[in-house]
């Protein structure tokens, strides 16, 4: 004992040096990714936010002048004493697109979750050819959105579309319907295509969660004599909930900024115009670059708020532990 004490080993110091080395190594490995992220995500984001406070236009980006919050809300008092409000926050078209986006997101994510859960439960069962079915179910998700949107656009086409043809022959409709152009059906068409496309993604994430549940507790439930439906509600659902919550937030974020599908399928329909479509339209088509930037910034803010609220209210656990 005495020998060990007299040696006076700098134990704690050696340990902290080791930790410093590891932290340094971690930073070296992280640095390239952080630089790339800053370039492709951080810088454009900051530029967009900056432009939203200027009067930039496509033809005059460099000479943009700082105009403060004018793009968001400007208050002009006329000589007559009338006050005129202008800007994004009082733009009915903007709020229409916000409403469209929220409506689309909620309906599509709810449907995808329910159908995805059903598909995942089926895929989680043992049956012959499960591997092939699992691969096949991914096809809609694997096709690029532009391709699948074009494909559906043709299928939904009012003159030549196969869907009108089938429904006519089945006698379900009496005249051909312009699914993507009609104000009543445009949102429905977009929803159907989106659900078709992204349910596989949801199913796969839920399936991964289901496979984390140990099989023996189902056997315990069998011996307890619990009805399978009750087992789903009382055992499966609570246990798959962490994975489900993460899957839902992934899909929610995707849905809230949806652009490509709607741009291809129902480009100019005010019933389906989302925040992203609105922003792009202003940025490039209407040459209101600064106004579009303001819309983009608002979209970013809305997404952030929804995500934060969801994570807090839903007690989402990203660490995957139980």
């Amino acid at each position, binding site marked *: 004992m005495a020998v060990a004490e007299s040696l006076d080993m700098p134990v704690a110091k050696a340990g902290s040096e080791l930790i410093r080395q590891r932290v340094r190594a971690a930073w070296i490995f992280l640095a390239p990714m952080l630089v790339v992220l800053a370039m492709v995500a951080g810088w454009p984001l900051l530029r967009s936010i900056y432009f939203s406070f200027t009067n930039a236009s496509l033809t005059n980006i460099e000479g943009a002048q700082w105009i403060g919050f004018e793009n968001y809300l400007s208050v002009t008092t006329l000589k007559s004493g009338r006050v005129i409000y202008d800007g994004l926050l009082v733009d009915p078209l903007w709020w229409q697109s916000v409403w469209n986006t929220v409506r689309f997101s909620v309906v599509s994510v709810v449907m995808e979750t329910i159908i995805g859960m059903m598909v995942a439960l089926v895929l989680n069962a043992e049956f012959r050819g499960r591997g092939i079915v699992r691969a096949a179910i991914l096809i809609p998700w694997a096709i690029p959105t532009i391709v699948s949107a074009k494909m559906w656009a043709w299928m939904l086409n009012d003159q030549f579309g196969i869907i009108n043809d089938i429904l006519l022959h089945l006698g379900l409709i009496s005249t051909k319907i312009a699914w993507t152009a009609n104000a009543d059906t445009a949102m429905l068409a977009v929803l159907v295509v989106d659900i078709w496309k992204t349910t596989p993604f949801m199913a796969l994430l839920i399936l991964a969660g289901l496979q984390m549940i140990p099989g023996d507790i189902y056997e315990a439930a069998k011996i307890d004599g619990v*009805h399978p439906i009750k087992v789903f509600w*009382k055992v499966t659902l609570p246990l798959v909930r962490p994975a489900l919550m993460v899957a839902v937030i992934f899909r929610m974020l995707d849905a809230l900024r949806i652009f490509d599908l709607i741009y291809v399928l129902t480009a100019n329909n005010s019933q389906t115009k989302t925040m992203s479509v609105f922003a792009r339209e202003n940025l490039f088509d209407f040459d209101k670059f600064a106004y579009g930037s303001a819309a983009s910034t608002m979209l970013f803010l809305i997404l952030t708020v929804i995500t934060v609220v969801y994570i807090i209210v839903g007690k989402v656990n990203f660490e995957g532990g*139980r």
Partner: protein
Amino acid sequence: MADLLLRGIKKSYGNVKVLHGIDLDIRAGEFIVFVGPSGCGKSTLLRLIAGLEDITAGTLQIDGQVVNQLAPSKRGIAMVFQSYALYPHMTVYDNMAFGMKLAKGHDKSEIDKRVREAANILQITPYLDRLPKQLSGGQRQRVAIGRAIVRDPKVFLFDEPLSNLDAALRVATRIEINKLHESMPGVTMIYVTHDQVEAMTLADRIVVLNAGRVEQVGPPMELYHNPANLFVARFLGSPSMNTMPCTVVSGGANPVVKPDGCDPIVVQATIPVSAAGAKATFGVRPEDLDISTNGEAIFRGKVDIVEQLGEVTLIYVDVGAPEPIVAKIPNDTVIAKGDTVALTSERRHLQVFDENGIAYPRT
């Protein structure tokens, strides 16, 4: 109170036959242990009794009723799983009450009474509000047992319940399971393990299984002293029985065998006269071998390894056979690697197995 009757139980998965016709009578209140090497079908047999797997052929009766087609929950059984199989999102209390709560026909006070009784027996009352992840392995195992007790089963099934516990806890829990059995005299218990110590200490009767067949059934000491065949002889006991090929020199009264490379010895076994000249296997347990002091010896050889276990010392003696002969000797014996020793044994301890590995009964 439930007798179990297994008649010609077979199980196959596709073309793979796992159990080849098991016949077994289990009396009410008995503690039966299925033991065997991994893959011998012992767990499968337990799962067939539980109803977690379909019986391919044969009949299973519990209490005189054929239950082949009966759901697990209707068989009057409860099961304790190796991995505990607790519901991770439910408290200890809910884990134990879950089955009864959803079964209907039990009012809340009755459920509460039963859960608290079981918790009391297993001393887990302080943990009733905790989640499984907040418990140690031993506590989880008690909860799993508690959940089984709450079901008030006629037959208790244990699937290797101690294999996830550390050595000390395993001994303690083993003793508790023993006590539990004593406190529930009418309840039949069937226990699967690959650990022969658990089998020896817990069982009223042991069922030794090998490759989907029953090798022998009987009380632990009966199996230990009078194994029916080579497999049982080698499987029970640690270190396992020394075995060596031998030739039957003569049968009848005072039969003589000659282990390869050793002198002929007289054994106490019923070997028919006609067996003379036949190949056989000679066996003797390590603890029955002593170091000879009078020159008489069965085996002679050089000590290869000396293992001092504390309570006893094991020596591995090279006698020219492929496998060394192991002897368990008192811990105060002075012996070193390289020493030449002569090993002897009392005649009544020697065993002989015929060409097919079946024991010649000892006299």
